[in-house]
């Protein structure tokens, strides 16, 4: 039975091997040079932020990084669509399951062998792509702020994505019984699940850490400040008033995200989106505006700070620390692998009981 499973899969396997070979040649050709550049030059100059003259080669190669990451994200989807969905559906559609099931192997052996051969190939292929790209990208990744920014295209999760996509394709193929609709719905469901997990589940794999800080009025010299999440994954940063109500996000207030003071006359100033300042402002703040970024005179700046302090605003940062990266990789890996096994179990049951 392994012979038939392999014979039917041969062409697809050769195509995948071809693509993997091209990637491997690129990675093995440019990778050592890249790592050498990083170890000898970039690692040191990056600390002082003066890499510009020496690393044009390093940066030029880096342009490939996005393409490689996208490739690793695409591979599981392609596996689900082109290997998983047609695996059973094409046999049902073309009636060839009647040929296969009337040879001297039981349909359970037929199904499990096919699933094992192509399923294993799916995981190995995704693993190969992830391994090559993760290694090639590691110099850039070590310079990036957070490992979570490339979470989906590195390390172990692509293997589980591939297992899940394959199993999803097989299951939908069994139920839909026609290859092309099964392929289309596999792609749609796979994308839907990936987005849903990333948006709604992954942030809560472990309880995120909250950091509460007092909101201070931005001064004229305030540059971009670190939000405090370090190399972690910042999930949200909200501004709350004294009553605990969310009044802004990412350091801004209200729907426009501005920090806006408006003179109402007679030194009375409104802190837009928060309330009216209890203190009087010097006359320099004219009616109609005066945004902090324009650099107000020192008297006004002090009045602004006093006003802001009086509202006791709190900045609440919610994030997953960088130290949890591997825990998250394995949680997501296990999640998708569990889904994959459940779908495989369903498919085998369906082939045994429902296709009859």
């Amino acid at each position, binding site marked *: *039975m392994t*012979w*038939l499973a392999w*014979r*039917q899969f041969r*062409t697809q396997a050769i195509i995948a091997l071809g693509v993997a070979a091209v990637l491997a040649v690129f990675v093995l050709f440019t990778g050592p040079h890249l790592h050498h550049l990083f170890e000898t030059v970039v690692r040191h100059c990056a600390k002082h932020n003066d890499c510009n003259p020496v690393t044009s080669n390093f940066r030029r190669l880096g342009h490939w990084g996005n393409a490689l990451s996208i490739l690793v994200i695409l591979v599981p989807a392609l596996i689900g669509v082109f290997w998983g969905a047609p695996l059973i559906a094409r046999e049902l559609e*073309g*009636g*060839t*399951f*009647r*040929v296969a*099931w*009337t*040879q*001297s*192997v*039981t*349909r359970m052996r037929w199904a499990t062998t096919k699933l094992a051969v192509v399923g294993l190939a799916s995981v190995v292929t995704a693993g190969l792509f992830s391994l090559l790209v993760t290694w090639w990208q590691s110099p850039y990744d070590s310079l990036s702020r957070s490992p979570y920014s490339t979470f989906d295209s590195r390390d172990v999760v692509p293997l589980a994505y591939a297992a899940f996509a394959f199993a999803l394709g097989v299951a939908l193929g069994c139920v839909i019984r026609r290859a092309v609709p099964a392929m289309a719905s596999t792609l749609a469901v796979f994308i839907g699940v990936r987005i849903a997990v990333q948006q709604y589940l992954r942030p809560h794999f472990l309880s995120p850490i909250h950091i509460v800080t007092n909101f201070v009025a931005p001064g004229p010299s305030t540059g971009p400040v670190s939000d405090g999440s370090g190399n972690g994954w910042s999930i949200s940063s909200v501004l709350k008033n004294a009553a605990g109500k969310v009044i802004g996000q990412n350091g801004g207030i209200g729907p426009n995200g501005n920090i806006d003071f408006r003179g109402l006359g007679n030194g009375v100033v409104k802190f837009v989106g928060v309330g009216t300042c209890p203190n009087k402002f010097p006359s320099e703040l004219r009616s109609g505006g005066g945004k902090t970024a324009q650099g107000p005179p020192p008297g006004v700046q002090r009045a602004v700070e006093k006003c802001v302090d009086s509202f006791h605003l709190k900045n609440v940062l919610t994030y997953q620390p960088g130290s949890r990266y591997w825990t998250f990789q394995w949680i997501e890996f296990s999640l998708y692998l569990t889904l994959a096994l459940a779908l495989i179990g369903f498919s085998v049951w369906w082939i045994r009981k429902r296709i*009859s």
Partner: protein
Amino acid sequence: MTTVLEATDLGKSYRGRWALRDCSITIPAGHVVGIVGPNGAGKSTLLNMAAGLISPSAGTIEVLGATPGASPSQLDKVGFLAQENPVYPGLSIADHLSLGSHLNPSWDQEFAHDRIRALDLNQRQRAGKLSGGQRAQLGLTMALAKRPDLLLLDEPVASLDPLARREFLQQLMDTVAGRDVSVVLSSHLVSDVERVCDYLIVLASSKVQVAGDVDDLLAMHHRLIGPRRDTATALANQHVIEASHTDKQSTLIVRSDGPVTDPDSTIESISLEDLVLAYMTKAKAEIVGNQGSDS
């Protein structure tokens, strides 16, 4: 006499609709059996159940003394050619033969190669490019190379043109002749069955209408043409299968267990086609009658 297929109250329903119902049938070994019946009579359902491809919703079926498709050894004893003669379009003829040799312990590769050569087919050709007749021949070759005890052919010639149809059936007969194999084939055309079968089963309205040795059936059935009469007053030991009347005369097709003697009528023998049509008409009339009484 041993049986190759034994079904008892066999039924199969799809989403509440019965494709085959209350089918009890015994097929003896050593025959070339033709199952004829109109489209939708359940022939295909019966053969697919016999091959183990679908499982019954009701009743039981045993093929060669075991549940169809239950074990590799049972599968090994049954050769099956599915309706429409499916093949793997991307695989060559040689691949199909390799498939057979890898999946069947009793596979006869020499026979398969010889037969493909005799059919003048190129082994390297992709099966997707074969004509309907060639696909059927490839399927039959695969079914025969298993050296089965029972060969099940589901409408093997339905998609073939008349010439290919005749060739296929002729070659089937030539190949089967010297072997110890029982054959069950289905068709909606009596002419196909008449050419090759020595045992007939008429399946209509998912019920076995009549079954038996072709020669016996022909000897038992007669057409009586005589003065007009009421069919209810049929003669003893005769069953009226079909009756048609004009003002003056009645034409009856009857089954009789003994010799037919009817001084008032002309007694004719009937063709297999007439016999099958008579039973199909009867089955249809019963359906209409049942529906009439239901409403």
